[in-house]
């Protein structure tokens, strides 16, 4: 495990909390709704309730603060870029100048707005993935996608593909590492030289990996067929998602929060 980070099972953090126990469908819908409303709010002040609300949810989820902040790491660069871009390139009333760069009031406002939105976007999606196992997410997705059946969305197939991909990610990383080491034993060096050479140096890794994936896919398909898999039709589930009182309550709270927020914006 020395060449690849441990990304296996997403970022699910299995602790017991009320947020963890909420039905994945409720969580997925809530996060989507919150994100939509977050991105249509144009006023910095209106973002404050979202911050408080997200904060409360994180507090209830018992996710360690360290993990929460760490979630920001991958977008730090993007965040900084968006922030600086907005500050310096939004036209409006000049507040002060740094050399030839003018900082406008509108710019500062925009930068904070966009930055905060990005941070909240990451926090909310992480809240979902931290508190919901990948298996539950795919199960939830499958159920939700059923609403779009009239559009002929293959909800079962999409969910099955997702869950098998999740299942095989760790296997693929292991395989990649094995092949890499075998090629290094034959004197291969990865990622050295100039641009084209560098790309070419990965051929001895990529080709065997692909061949392996196809072979595995075939073997898996045979094993699945042998276990009577014939698509989603007539298939039942061991764990049926069932909405309980707390799930309804959670959904109502989220909706009330959004309604209140919208009304505050109007009046």
């Amino acid at each position: 495990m020395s060449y690849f980070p441990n990304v296996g099972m997403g970022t699910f953090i299995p602790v017991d909390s009320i947020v963890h126990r909420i039905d994945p469908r409720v969580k997925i819908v809530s996060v989507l709704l919150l994100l939509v409303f977050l991105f249509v709010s144009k006023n910095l002040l209106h973002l404050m309730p979202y911050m408080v609300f997200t904060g409360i949810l994180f507090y209830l989820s018992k996710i360690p603060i360290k993990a929460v902040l760490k979630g920001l790491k991958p977008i730090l660069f993007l965040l900084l870029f968006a922030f600086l871009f907005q500050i310096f390139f939004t036209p409006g009333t000049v507040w002060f100048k740094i050399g030839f760069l003018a900082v406008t009031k509108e710019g500062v406002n925009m930068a904070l707005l966009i930055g905060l939105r990005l941070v909240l976007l990451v926090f909310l999606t992480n809240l979902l993935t931290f508190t919901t196992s990948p298996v539950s997410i795919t199960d939830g997705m499958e159920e939700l996608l059923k609403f779009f059946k009239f559009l002929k969305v293959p909800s079962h197939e999409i969910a099955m593909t997702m869950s098998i991909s999740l299942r095989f990610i760790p296997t693929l990383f292991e395989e990649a590492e094995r092949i890499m080491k075998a090629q290094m034993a034959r004197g291969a060096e990865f990622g050295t030289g100039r641009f084209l050479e560098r790309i070419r140096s990965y051929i001895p890794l990529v080709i065997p990996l692909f061949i392996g994936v196809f072979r595995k896919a075939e073997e898996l398909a045979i094993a699945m067929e042998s276990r009577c898999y014939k698509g989603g039709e007539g298939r039942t589930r061991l764990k049926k998602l069932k909405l309980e009182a707390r799930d309804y309550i959670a959904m109502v709270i989220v909706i009330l929060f959004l309604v209140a927020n919208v009304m505050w914006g109007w009046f």
Partner: protein
Amino acid sequence: MAIEVKNVSFFYSIGTPFEKKALENISFSLEMGENMGILGPTGSGKSTLIQLLNALLIPTKGEVLIDGLNTRERKNGSKIRELVGVVFQYPENQFFEDTVYEEIAFGAKNLRLSKEEVDRRVREAIAVVGLPEAILDKSPFELSGGEKRKVAIASILVRKPKYLVFDEPFAGMDYPGTEALVKFLKSLRGTVSLIVVTHTLDELLGLVDKIMFLDNGKMKAFGPVKDIIHFEELRKYVPLAELISLLEQKGLNFQLNTFELDHLEEEIVRNVLFS
């Protein structure tokens, strides 16, 4: 000229919550020309040890020296990988070239040899593993299981290693395949030092001079085959050792330095018929 492993420990993911001890305080040496087998259940640290020998892993503590070169020094890496060739488990899974020729040549080209030298070595390697030159133009993917395994071995031999490590060379082979491979490995003895990691005990015993027994990251035993065979934990898996100890109890006297079946046959015939 030797492989020297001095007080080596290895930890995976050191400093993280996933930290895992794989090897603990291992020391041994193997002179050029000696052949050794490594035994141990899954998770005993065998594959970690292999990777330490050709600098794919660097010890957390201790030193690994290959002909005096320390694996810890980055600049030694490629020289060490030339000296120590490793044939990993299911080596045919690493094929990526269009022809057997290119597949074998890959390892030699990485040594930055001249075109002529690469060509000479490829033809030599394919002869050593006992395949016809005509196979060089074929695709490595259309060969039989046994042929694939041989081509994979040739793709390491082409680098002319002094120490040749095999990780489970018999995995997935049936009897004629295994037998042919054992015969081939025996033919390599003398030209290289073999280090063979396997569960297939019967084959191994006839092949090597020294045996190491690893368990849970610790070296439980290391020594010449004929001594280690009396090692309790091992003997129950070695019917031949049990046979010999039973016969010795009855007063027969064996002069054994290997566990090759032919040699054993001779010893028994000598003992039963002529003494």
